[in-house]
């Protein structure tokens, strides 16, 4: 039985972990380029899920159309927020003053704004879930059960990560974004429009959150408070190292697997505690994360 639990935990954990990794990636992209921790990352996921619900159920569209539309919408949301709010906060920075805290608080404010926008809508007044992407009966690998939907979720998440990697490594825009994240002044000196790059990163993070939201929504329950799963993304990012993109991906998978195995071998009650325990443990023993560089303290 324990072997079954371990393998089932592994299989289930890879699926949920892939989603955690996507959301964590969106956090890290924003952090690397703007040094802002986006506390509204979970609400981007929530907004995308509800938009998909509306398009699929009320609009009668398919996932093939709904996904790009939702990604475009949250891309716009992220880019506009950066341009309209964060840039303004930065613009009011006085010499010697650090506005990072104000920017982070702005993201907290965004969480309430987004929840407030969704709550009056008809679909938000009761618990909902997205229709399944694929009709799924169980697929047994030995005694381990997975579904076609799980395979689809995992595949789409991994493909998204691969596409992101290709984008950053091999496209001019991707290289420009990396340059902006590494050294904004130098990037500006060589003619890269830094402000526009930052807006683009926020938009990209929004789009990633949308994909994560649409992947996770058929498996969970949609409520305006579902953005709380951002804590799982934080845990994944902290495990991997907040500035290390491959590390964050590994962190997401690890967290998903650990959560499942803890639930199977220790207690179902312990599942909700696992991310917090992981965060504490990593911060205590390796605060830079498993794949982060040297630990350093930065004054805010």
């Amino acid at each position, binding site marked *: *039985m324990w072997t*079954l*639990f371990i393998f*089932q*935990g592994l299989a*289930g954990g890879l699926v*949920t972990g892939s989603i955690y990794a996507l959301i964590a990636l969106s956090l890290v992209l924003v952090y690397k380029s703007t040094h802002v921790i986006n506390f509204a990352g979970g609400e981007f996921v929530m907004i995308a899920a509800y938009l998909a619900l509306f398009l699929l159920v009320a609009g009668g569209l398919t996932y093939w159309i709904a996904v790009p539309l939702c990604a475009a919408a949250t891309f716009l949301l992220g880019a506009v927020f950066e341009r309209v709010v964060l840039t303004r906060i930065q613009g009011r920075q006085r010499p010697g003053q650090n506005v990072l805290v104000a920017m982070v608080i702005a993201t907290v404010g965004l969480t309430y704004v987004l929840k407030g926008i969704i709550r009056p809508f008809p679909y938000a*007044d*009761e*618990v*909902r*879930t997205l*229709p*399944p992407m694929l*009709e*799924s*009966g*169980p697929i*047994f690998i030995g005694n381990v*059960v997975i*579904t076609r939907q799980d395979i689809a979720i995992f595949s789409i998440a991994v493909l998204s990560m691969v596409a992101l990697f290709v984008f950053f490594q091999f496209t001019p825009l991707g290289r420009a974004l990396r340059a902006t994240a590494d050294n904004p002044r130098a990037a500006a000196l060589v003619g890269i429009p830094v402000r526009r790059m930052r807006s683009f990163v926020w938009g990209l993070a929004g789009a990633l959150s949308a994909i994560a939201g649409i992947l*996770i929504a*058929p*498996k*969970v*329950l949609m*409520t305006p408070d579902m953005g*709380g*799963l951002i804590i799982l993304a934080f845990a994944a990012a902290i495990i991997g190292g907040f500035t290390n993109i491959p590390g964050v991906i590994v962190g997401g998978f690890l967290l998903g697997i650990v*959560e*499942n195995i803890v*639930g*199977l071998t220790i*207690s*179902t*009650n312990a*599942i*909700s505690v696992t991310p917090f325990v992981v965060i504490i443990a990593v911060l205590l023993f390796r605060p830079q994360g498993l794949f982060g560089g040297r630990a350093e303290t930065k004054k805010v």
Partner: protein
Amino acid sequence: MRNSSIGKLFGAFGLAAALSVGVASAYTVKDPQQKYADPGITDDEIVIGLHAPLSGRAKAFGADALDAARMWYDMINARGGIWGRKIRVIVGDDKCSPNDLLAVVKKFVTEDKVFLVNGGSCTHAAVAAQEYVTREKVPFVMLNAAGDAAVFPPTRYVFGAFGGTQRTVGGSLIDFVTKNLGAKKIAYIAHDDDFGASNYLAAKWTADQNGASIVADQRVSRKIVDVTAPMLKIRASGADVIVITTYTGPAALLVKKAHEFGIKMPIVAAVQAVPNLEAFVKNVGSKEAFANFYYGSPLNDLTDGPKQQWVIDWFKKTYNRTPTPFMSYGIPSAMAIAQALHNAGPNPTREGFIDALAATRLNTGILAGPIEFGDNKRDGHNASIFIKYDGAGSTRVPGVFFNRMPLNP
């Protein structure tokens, strides 16, 4: 007879008449502080503070139930009231929040001077009023909240659970699965809080009494996202039946996961898991998942079944709208209050009303079982029916199932 004697006689008669009028006036003056020991009652009326969540997300649980209670009181008034007194209702919105509920109850008591308070659709909010009403010695009769924490242990001034407590849920669920489905090994899924602990207590007791055992006891958070772990453990437990007492969100995930795992054993869900069957089915996403699915209800029929039709038609006629599934739950408390006010006699006091309510035995024609209180019993209803849903339609399973666990097992 001399004129002076006649004059004295008339004077005496006049004085006697004046005195009589004065004495009579004293008894007809509408000043409750002079004639009645408690506020909220006069010769003409009894004032009841009636509250429920009338706004926000919990409005669906409370608004129609409150209107149903008001409908019952209006009917009583149309028939002449109780001992000639009409019931006057003052309405408040408790927003399903402990702070707001307590504020509404305090306003009822201190400003509106009600005789009793009838309200509460949310347990955690209703419990907040217990200390206050006990201190102020004001009868508090819940509307449709289960209110486990407020009725166990029982206190003098708080009555509730007209729809049944979580003990009712747990006990009647196990009564059903053991007697009707013949289950001997039960997998039980509850929330990891007082709610779950309360229904599990009665479930375990009932299982022991009925010769069954709970072979898997899984507790899940209300916000659980992935139910793979509990469902896998249940699959490995060798259970005959799965009993789910969670709220609707986790319940939908569990039914969905059971279907994904190819689990064929019966699944029996508590009433709180399926407040809206249509939405529940959509959330599960597959009608095939309901091949062997049952859910409980404290009513005496399906929410739109023939035994409920009289109250649904009455509500539609009164308010010109179709009620939500929770509407019927508002009437039993109003029925019990009206009966107790009558039984308390022509000049009731709050204490007399409480004694009368504690002695209440009432068949409502709405609930699965009778309303019964007692000197040491403040949870009114202990029965459930069960409904089979097979993906196409619902049918009521014959029989009524009870929680018989004593107060202190």
